[in-house]
């Protein structure tokens, strides 16, 4: 007793980014519903486009199967009250209904409860509004006066099971038998009979329901155009996704723009084509950008002249705007723009962009110095790194800041490494193949100055949003330090920056502690995201220099160690001392009162480690694991053979001092007490 089920929510244009999310959420909700009622089905499919979301279930049971559920009651020899209570809670008056069953050698009353067969259409009818209202939206809306939400207003709900409409109401719309053809063409009302016919009817009315079909259709048209015109078949995947989600019948139209606009940099042309207009651009076989473009529309080819002309003239206007900006911008060289920065407020109370440029330039040199390097003289021209912020092009395309500076610097013939650094400084991530050190350092310097500047000016960033991009910048510089292996101490950097502010007569009234906490929290988030255990990360971060790369190294080594069998043994031994240690580590230890060989060994090891700490970096402990194994052995030997709580109060206290000193010394190496042992 199976039949097909269809649900189609038809409405105003669904944004591309939301389509798959709705499908996924609906699939999850239907699966949960079927699981909880034990409803069987053969297969479930989902589809979405700019106007509709569809769930199709092939061969869905018309009713739930009857099941027998066994409810265990009290033992057969239990007192009458318990038995009465069990009967009452299960609404039974006659004890004879109960069976008896032996479980683990004991006899119990059991009630075999037969569940009623339920009709699936009734279950669906009852649950569909709930399913629609429980989508995990990132964004959704209300419309009119109702309170139900969807991504955009719903116009129609088609819901049929077993050839009958499942009647329900959501957001003021009552479900029915109908669907609609392509909205832009005729929006013909179509009666649903079965799924195969539904798909055919849609196809006939210019709707390709399946996203894969739409994508294939776009690709085929693009490829055939490329073959005819000897162009490279290299298409922007995310644009294909976006475009195939924006129309139900993707006809491709091809246009061109005047080659006079090739004086614009390629990144700008491509930005206008794909980001602003959702057009495909084309490269020739030599990888050179051509003046051809493609856009996709629901409309039929017979209207092509009108459409192509319109889209070409839009592009012309956009390019001519960009050309105007570039011509204006080229009139002034980057170094001549430095003074203009003096008139642009960076953040209130912390000076102009020129002040910022000076700080960035100094910070870059300081970072090089801290890495034991010196910035090449030819590259030390960083006051211009921000100069593009005064250009018309950046005012018009703020997301191209940096890229514009890099382009203008290249036009002026400045060194390549400097141009690249200016161009890419605002990137939040860099691929592993990216090597230009100056980019990383400039990126860290400008973001660090931006973060500190924002905190000085705004005091705090409240809420979960990131209106000034500070959280994103923070994560970015931590990532750069870790991925590019740059050991930079942020405390030193902060102190240096503070001096720069003082020299600029800018009052800086934030405490390092605040910034330190802020950065540490982000380092923890990032390292946990990278897959490290939170306890391991926390133990490696609190109390150590704020140097993301060295923290990362420490966490990596410690992670490997705690997973090893030596590590596990060490932690068990360590927990023994940590449990007994008191706040006595500053007391004097009486060496002459150490009697047992094991406590003398412990004391000797304490001296040895103390000496090492004085001479070396604390990380030595993970580089030389023999010392950890030694600690494990000496600690276990001590606790196995020496009693701490002896009667002689002086010896007892002296041993506690020894334990406390040892514990404090290990904590100096690493805070193992924060690591959880199972």
């Amino acid at each position, binding site marked *: 007793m199976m039949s097909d089920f269809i649900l189609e929510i038809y409405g105003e244009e669904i944004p591309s980014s939301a389509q798959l999310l709705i499908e996924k959420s609906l699939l999850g909700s239907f699966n949960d519903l079927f699981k909880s009622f034990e409803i069987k089905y053969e297969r479930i499919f989902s589809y979405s486009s700019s106007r509709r979301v569809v769930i199709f279930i092939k061969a869905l049971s018309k009713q739930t199967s009857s099941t027998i559920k066994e409810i265990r009651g009290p033992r057969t020899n239990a007192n009458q009250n318990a038995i009465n209570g069990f009967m009452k809670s299960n609404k039974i008056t006659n004890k004879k209904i109960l069976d008896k069953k032996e479980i683990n050698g004991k006899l119990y009353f059991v009630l075999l409860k037969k569940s009623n067969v339920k009709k699936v259409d009734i279950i669906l009818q009852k649950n569909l509004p709930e399913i629609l209202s429980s989508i995990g939206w990132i964004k959704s809306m209300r*419309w009119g006066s109702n309170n139900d939400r969807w991504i955009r207003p719903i116009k129609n709900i088609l819901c049929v099971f077993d050839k009958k409409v499942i009647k329900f109401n959501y957001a003021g719309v009552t479900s029915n038998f109908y669907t609609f053809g392509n909205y832009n063409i005729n929006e013909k009302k179509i009666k649903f009979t079965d799924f195969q016919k539904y798909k055919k009817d849609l196809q006939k009315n210019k709707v390709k329901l399946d996203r894969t079909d739409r994508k294939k259709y776009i690709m085929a048209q693009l490829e055939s155009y490329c073959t005819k015109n000897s162009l490279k078949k290299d298409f922007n995947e995310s644009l294909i996704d976006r475009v195939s989600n924006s129309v139900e019948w993707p006809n491709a139209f091809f246009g061109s723009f005047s080659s006079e606009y090739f004086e614009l940099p390629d990144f700008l042309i491509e930005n206008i084509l794909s980001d602003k207009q959702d057009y495909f651009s084309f490269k020739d076989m030599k990888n050179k950008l051509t003046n051809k473009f493609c856009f996709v529309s629901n409309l039929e080819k017979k209207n092509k002249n009108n459409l192509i002309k319109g889209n070409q003239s839009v592009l012309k206007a956009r390019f001519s705007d960009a050309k105007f900006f570039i011509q204006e911008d080229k009139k002034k060289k980057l170094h001549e723009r430095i003074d203009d920065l003096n008139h642009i407020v*960076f953040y209130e109370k912390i000076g102009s962009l020129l002040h910022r440029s000076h700080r960035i330039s100094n910070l870059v040199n300081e970072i090089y110095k801290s890495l034991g390097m010196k910035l090449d003289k030819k590259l030390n021209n960083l006051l211009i790194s921000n100069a593009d912020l005064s250009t018309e092009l950046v005012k018009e395309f703020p997301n191209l800041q940096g890229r514009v500076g890099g382009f203008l610097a290249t036009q002026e013939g400045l060194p390549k490494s400097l141009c690249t650094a200016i161009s890419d400084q605002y990137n939040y991530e860099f691929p592993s193949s990216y090597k230009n050190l100056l980019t990383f350092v400039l990126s860290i310097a400008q973001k660090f100055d931006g973060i500190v500047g924002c905190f000085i000016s705004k005091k705090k960033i409240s809420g979960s949003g990131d209106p000034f991009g500070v959280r994103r910048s923070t994560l970015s510089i931590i990532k750069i330090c870790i991925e590019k292996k740059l050991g930079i101490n942020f405390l030193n950097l902060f102190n240096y920056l503070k001096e720069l502010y003082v020299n600029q007569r800018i009052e800086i009234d934030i405490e390092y502690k605040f910034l330190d906490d802020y950065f540490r929290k982000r380092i923890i988030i990032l390292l946990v995201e990278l897959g490290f255990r939170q306890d391991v990360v926390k133990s490696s971060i609190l109390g150590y220099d704020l140097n993301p790369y060295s923290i990362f190294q420490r966490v990596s080594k410690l992670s490997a160690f705690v997973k090893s069998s030596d590590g596990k043994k060490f932690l068990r031994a360590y927990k023994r001392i940590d449990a007994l240690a008191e706040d006595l580590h500053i007391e004097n230890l009486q060496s002459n009162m150490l009697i047992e060989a094991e406590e003398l060994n412990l004391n000797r090891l304490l001296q040895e480690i103390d000496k090492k700490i004085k001479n070396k970096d604390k990380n030595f402990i993970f580089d030389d694991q023999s010392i950890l194994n030694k600690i494990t052995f000496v600690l276990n030997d001590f606790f196995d053979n020496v009693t701490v709580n002896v009667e002689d109060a002086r010896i007892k206290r002296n041993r506690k001092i020894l334990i406390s000193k040892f514990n404090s010394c290990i904590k100096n190496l690493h805070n193992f007490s924060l690591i959880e042992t199972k």
Partner: protein
Amino acid sequence: MLTFQEIIDNLQSYWEDKGCTKIQPFDMEMGAATFHPATALKAIGIQPWRVVFVQPCRRPSDGRYGQNPNRLQHYYQLQVLIKPNPINSQELFLNSLGAIGINKKFNDIKFIEDDWESPTLGATGLGWEIQCNGMEISQFTYFQQIGGYECKPVSLEITYGLERIATFVQNIESVYDIKIDKSGLTYKDIFLENEKQMSFFNFKYAPKDYLYESFRHFEQNSKILINQKLPIPAYEQCIKASHSFNLLDSRGLVSVSERQAYILRIRSLVQECCKLVIGNDE
């Protein structure tokens, strides 16, 4: 071929037929018709509201010294606000395009996702940018929040970019060639010189110190008026502050980072105004 004036008349008549009251522009410089109190202060609260009006808008940084065919620092928007939004909002809009000769069967009308927000007004809405053959001609928005307050019921706001639409309808490439009326007068005759001179003002001569000072001054006034529980004049001061900020921006005196801070300052005032308006409404 419809003239600029006929496009305005046709759209206004169309919406008047649909029950909207024709009202007049607001007499202050504003960046978008949404700032008109008939939109910003009427989209909140529960009372039904249906209006259509033309609003001159100023976006100083969009000035191009009259050299760009479709960028202007002063232009006209026609705005429709209907609360609650009609069930057939989208059809009504498409039919309104029909009233000015734009037929969806022959022109590619696309609804491009544009979760509109006016950071300054603390307003958000979901809707689309409407493109006709690739050119943005309108904004279509279901208001969800103004001044941080939920819009219940939801208003529909449609904003028509009149110059863009006119270039399309008249099949011309430059806004300056728009025929204003049957007399043959063009947009160039009325506005070209204005665009040139005002671009100089916006980019070069708008007095820097005065702008900083006026922004603070309007902000302060608004605070005083809010304390006096006078949301309407307080809101007018926000409109003025917003224009000072737009001029600071066109003069290139505000960095991308600080721009956000200015916007937040105006937004918090608008929020206070809305709070008072809602209080009065209830």
